[in-house]
């Protein structure tokens, strides 16, 4: 449990610190970020399937970007 708790607390504190900061990337500066190649989940059905392939053969689970409907039997 400690292995997970340490990173959670550290990152939560960093995020809280961020609450006090003015937005530093303006909307007109986000063209690169809006490019489809920057998406975490560009093709959801395809990515979801690949995640299931791994989930079905590995003991770890959860915290995937693109999991969803699909089979456990892969």
């Amino acid at each position, binding site marked *: *449990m400690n*292995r*997970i708790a340490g*990173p*959670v607390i550290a*990152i939560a504190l960093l*995020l809280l610190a*961020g*609450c006090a*900061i*003015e*937005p*530093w*990337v303006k*909307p007109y*500066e*986000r063209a*690169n*970020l*809006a*490019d489809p*190649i*920057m*998406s*975490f*989940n*560009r*093709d*959801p*059905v*395809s990515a*979801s*399937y*690949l*995640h*299931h*392939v*791994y*989930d*079905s*053969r*590995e*003991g*770890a*689970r*959860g*915290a*995937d*970007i*693109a*999991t*969803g*409907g*699909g*089979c*456990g*039997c*892969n």
Partner: protein
Amino acid sequence: MREPLLEILPLRRLALIALLAGIGSPSLLSTNAGAAVLPEERADLLYHSYDGGGAKINGPSVLVRKNVGDAVSVGLNHYVDNVTSASIDVLVSASKYTERREENSLNLDYLRQKTTMSLGYTRSLESDYDATTLNLGIAQDMFGDLTTVSMSFALGDNTVRQNGNDTFREDSQARSYRVGVTQILTTKLIMALTFETISDQGYLNNPYRSVRYVDPSSPAGYSFQQEVYPRTRTSNAIALRGNYYLEQHAALHAGVRLFQDTWNIDATTYELGYTLPYGEDWTLEARFRLHDQGNAEFYSDLFPYQDAQNYLARDKELSSFTSTSFGIGASYDFGRGWSMIDRGSLNLQLDYIQFDYDNFRDLTVSAPVGEEPLYSFDATVTRIFASFWF
């Protein structure tokens, strides 16, 4: 005892939990982090194929996602697995089998100002396993839309049966709690942090699967008994991922996930990817993934005697192993300016996975008990799909 689903069932249990986990995004069908928008209106026709370790699994997946008015998005997904398996487990103590599984899901997203609420329902049916999942999610943009915070909850209810044994029926339930933060850090860097707890209870093992133990009275030197899992399990996973935009119009993707559960499985997964548009219409991809995990505390390839401990497992997914995968993909865009669609794409994705087990032995090879070679296998995963945006 015939064991037709020796490999499949525990895997299904694991992935059912993964299915529960899927709500965080919010729902299978949402896309990028950033400003609050409804998921893209699109249709996908996908053919998937897995071939490795004696198992072949393939089938279609069809998704249609459409807006209803300005604030609601509806998604439908139909998914099929056709399974033919003669895996290592099946070869050792059962016979080759075939099976079919079908799953249908409905997802609704509702957008109100900077908040997206999602609701999903998934139903999966096969000969000896039914799974129903309900999920709820909410995502909120804040801090000038630099930050998206999401939370979700999923509830799963499963019925486990055993082919050939009409009196066998067990249930299990799963709950998933997930929190995610996606943060724009610079004009070229966006990161996502996800934490998820999954808790399940009930019948979590496989009615077909066995463990082996030393048995001098057996000609082989060992015998099998049915595995016994705890009836509860809770896991925690945290993942940090980032996408970085490169000057030459390409993207670099990296991520790491830490995992731990009450069965004492520790795992770390690393991901690295590269996406490169080529010309006007092509997008090329390459990716690498490394997964390393330790075994569950009640796992053993060979127990010293029958009923050696309260809980017994010889499921290789609960063993200590490493999986390494490489993937490439190509996407071709078409249809801009067509009257029926905004655009379309044709896609091919290929992945090669190598599994190397540290304490799961290959019993198909004759050797002194406990000295059989360690098992390993590779698999090829193919995805071919067409997508249409409208």
